């Protein structure tokens, strides 16, 4: 499982790093900060710990920093990238292998500057470009929370990156170009909830890390391009600025439901890398999730909705894609056709599922082949994978049928190739 969205920065980041390698070596050096004796739980006020817990849930630290079946926060999760594999590190307070002897200052330097206590540069898989925006007091709270987790001895696994990306001083160049974000300041023309949402979404939540496109150097585009959609682990992260193709416009209520439960009746279920995000938000303070929903909804408030509404052209789709219609009847209808229990119980109908409205078929194909893991735990929305039962050609027929039946938008092309690509990726270890 790959759960992180960061293929972008490496693509361009590599380029920049190569160019500037000599120039940056001089500024690449960062000093080591002194080791401390690990603090005790009693050193932190209870209020700070509970605030830290809530913030950590929104930042979803546990997802990347916990291996499958491993000890919470002890790291070791493999983060596969086209350039090799990174392993997340142990952020439990173990002094030898974790961050037990990190001072608050060292922690905050890592969160803001992407530098380890020992002075090494950290890869921007840790989204410090966002964490720079987090208030000092909140970083203190997260520090307190992490330093009071049970310590686990778990040495870092060696990354397996292609040459020369293992040479960390190169990262200084990337930072020089792109690491300029400042601490969040509220907008006086907006209310407190909006500002809270903006702070969380831009900072710890790092929503634009996936939902904004990236430039050639792998840094997020800003300005009018911000939130116009991106890619995460091969999944399309739809635009949040209203330029996306949702059949029904998002509202702050529907966003809240989606972020909190992983499914909204008129847009679909959280799939792929959005799953872990929902997992964290399902456990975060409800008011914070409302605030994030309010902020995200505001991003598209200025746009005139061009949502086409729900489509269900069942007869036409069956005529043009009879093979797809037959596959749908046997493989999908038990959940997604009218009269199926899931429909009777108010789960989203395919007519309004965003994945079928996107310009690219990737999300639909990934959902068909890989299924959807219930993001909020076993009671969440889930879908079984069809990789074993359907061939690439059948997936293509089915996707074409779904598109023609449930969307007014142009037909997808090269579906079989797209299916083959996803399948190949999936079959790699």
């Amino acid at each position, binding site marked *: 499982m790959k759960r992180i969205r960061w293929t972008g920065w490496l693509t361009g980041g590599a380029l920049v790093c190569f160019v500037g390698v000599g120039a940056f070596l001089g500024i690449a050096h960062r000093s080591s900060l002194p080791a401390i004796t690990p603090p005790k739980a009693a050193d932190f006020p209870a209020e700070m710990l509970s605030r830290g817990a809530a913030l950590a849930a929104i930042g979803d630290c546990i997802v990347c920093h916990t291996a499958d079946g491993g000890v919470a926060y002890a790291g070791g999760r493999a983060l596969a990238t086209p350039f090799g594999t990174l392993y997340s590190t142990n952020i439990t307070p173990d002094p030898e292998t974790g961050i037990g002897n990190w001072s608050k200052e060292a922690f905050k330097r890592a969160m803001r500057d992407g530098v380890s206590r020992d002075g090494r540069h950290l890869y921007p898989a840790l989204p410090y470009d966002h964490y720079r925006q987090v208030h000092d007091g909140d970083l203190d709270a997260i520090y307190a929370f992490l330093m009071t987790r049970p310590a686990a001895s778990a040495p870092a696994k060696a990354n397996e990156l292609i040459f020369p990306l293992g040479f960390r001083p190169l990262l200084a160049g990337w930072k020089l170009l792109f690491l300029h974000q400042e601490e969040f300041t509220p907008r006086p023309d907006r209310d407190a909830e909006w500002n809270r949402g903006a702070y969380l979404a831009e900072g710890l939540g790092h929503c634009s890390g996936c939902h904004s496109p990236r430039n050639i150097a792998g840094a997020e585009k800003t300005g009018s391009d911000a939130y116009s959609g991106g890619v995460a682990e091969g999944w399309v992260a739809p635009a949040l600025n209203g330029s996306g193709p949702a059949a029904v416009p998002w509202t702050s209520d529907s966003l809240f439901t989606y972020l909190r439960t992983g499914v909204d009746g008129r847009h679909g279920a959280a799939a792929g890398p959005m799953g872990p995000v929902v997992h964290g938000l399902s456990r975060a303070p409800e008011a914070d999730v409302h605030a994030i929903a309010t902020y995200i909804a505001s991003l598209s408030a200025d746009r005139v909705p061009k949502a086409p509404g729900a489509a269900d052209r069942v007869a036409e789709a069956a005529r043009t894609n009879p093979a797809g219609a037959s596959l749908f009847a*046997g493989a999908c209808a038990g*959940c997604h056709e009218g009269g199926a229990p899931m429909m009777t119980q108010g789960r989203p109908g395919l007519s309004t599922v965003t994945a079928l409205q996107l310009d690219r078929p990737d999300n639909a194909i990934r959902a068909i082949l890989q299924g959807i893991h219930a993001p909020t735990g076993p009671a969440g929305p889930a879908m079984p994978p069809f990789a074993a039962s359907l061939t690439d050609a059948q997936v293509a027929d089915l996707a074409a049928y779904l598109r023609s039946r449930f969307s007014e938008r142009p037909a997808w092309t090269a579906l079989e190739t797209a299916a083959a690509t996803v399948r190949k990726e999936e079959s790699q270890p």
Partner: protein
Amino acid sequence: MTVTITVNGADHALDVDPATPLLYVLRDDLELNGAKYGCGLGQCGACTVHIDGKPAFSCLTPVGAVAGRRIRTVEGLGSTQAPGLLQQAFETEQAAQCGYCIAGMLMRAQALLDRNPDPDEAQIRAHMQTNLCRCGTHMRILRAIRRAVAMHKGIQAAQEVRP
């Protein structure tokens, strides 16, 4: 419409709506009892069969989609008279209560052993996660899979010492 499918090595030409889930074709046309209707939603695993060697939910597999592909059911693992190794292990461990889930469990587990003959406990549990048992037979199912692994190793060791 005629659909030809290959089940446990035998070809069957069937006059059937190709949308029909494989499960009902196996049960009602081929009169194979192994795959069971549990949920029809791909959530419980009672209907698990192998398609080209991989475990799949037959309740969500249109029969037209598997024409010409290799389908294996629990009947293909062995019979009462000549049970397969995994079936023997389940018998030895008495790994069934009501048993309704068991054919699916066997097929699910067999797919793991075909891919990895020596899985560790965590791998076994993770792999079996898709299949539900309501009687609470999980501990015996796990024991049976471990036993099958050991039996397989024993056979291999025996073969190695043979001149």
